[in-house]
């Protein structure tokens, strides 16, 4: 049993490694796991009022407060995705802000 566990777990970790490196595209369950890790990380950032976890004070706070979540996030997602999601959070926030500002200025919705 033990030896099978060893083989299957090593196959699993090999696959996970390939996904992280971007050598293979993640399948549905891997995507789901990644999104869940992402949402937990986002949740932690929300708790500490961090939008940008890549630069400046946000990066420091995120490294200090959300290290565990970040580790899991990097574990479950492809490296390119981690960067993408972190940037996306900033872009999405700015988009929302812009919409709010435009709405306040009385812009017409198209």
């Amino acid at each position, binding site marked *: 049993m033990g030896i099978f566990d060893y083989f299957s777990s090593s196959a699993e970790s090999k696959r996970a490694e390939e996904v992280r490196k*971007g050598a293979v595209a993640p399948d*549905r369950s891997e995507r789901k796991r990644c999104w869940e890790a992402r949402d937990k990380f986002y949740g932690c950032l929300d708790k500490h009022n961090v939008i940008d976890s890549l630069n400046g004070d946000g990066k420091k706070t995120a490294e200090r407060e959300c290290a565990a979540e970040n580790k899991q996030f990097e574990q479950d997602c492809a490296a390119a*995705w981690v960067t993408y999601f972190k940037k996306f959070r900033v872009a999405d926030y700015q988009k929302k802000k812009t919409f709010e500002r435009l709405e306040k200025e009385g812009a017409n919705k198209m």
Partner: protein
Amino acid sequence: MPLSFAPATTSKMLRSIVPKCQQQAAAAATRHCSSRRFLSTATAQTQSSCRPMTTASQRCLRSSPTSTYNNSAAYQRRYAHKTVEEAKSRYRTGPFSWKAGALFVLTGGGLVWYFEFEKQRMQRKRVAEATKGVGRPKVGGDFELTDQNGKPFSSADLKGRYSLVYFGFTHCPDICPEELDKMAQMFDLVQAERPGALVPVFVTCDPQRDDPATLKTYLSEFHPSFVGLTGTYEQIKDMCKAYRVYFSTPRDAKPGVDYLVDHSIYFYLMDPEGDFVEALGRQHSPDAAAKVILDHVKDWRGRIKQ
């Protein structure tokens, strides 16, 4: 013409101007008129006994053709109002009745419905034909690619059916998988109503990493009917150019280097002749998108392959 109350008024008028004999005759004629339904035979005698009397009997005779005797149905119809009051009330209400009202509402409602239906149809027709003809922006065109089974697949294979074309790549982090799930739902909805009228097509923008086998595994998670297309970088570039799709795949990415592709995220609905019809975006729910597609499919007058 309500005749039933005419004898009553005429007899009153006559009484004041005609001699007595005639008055009798008039009264008899009146009786005759009003009691005609009993097919009285007594009137003939009254008339012959008093010759000068003509007006009342004539009036009566004019309105009593011989057919009255053998056609009681026609006679019944002419006396639609049984009493003077009924006739007067009918006169007061004029031509309006619940029947007239219902007819009016039905006709009006029908016209409004037909108008709206035609308006929407014309609008769809305009959208569909906006890209046909000369001097119009041309989206789509001929292509030669490879499908997920490694077989050649060209634009000719899409002719005869509507197709829904989506561009993406298998390493796509969040939007493509969501949109592909949506596309699968849309396809099922269309398929339920018009089986075989629509071909769902996924074209990769990342031919370097997405070979047919990768596409096959990837697409099988979404829908078994999806057609996945890949090719060389040049082929994909031409395809994207034809569909006016923006994509940012690096031309010579080194193996092992992970990258993401920025690309347009519209569904392109193409008609059976391969012409662009409409773009469906993130704002459409699967139901709304399926409705748009079905409406266009129903508008299509040509043949659609089954």
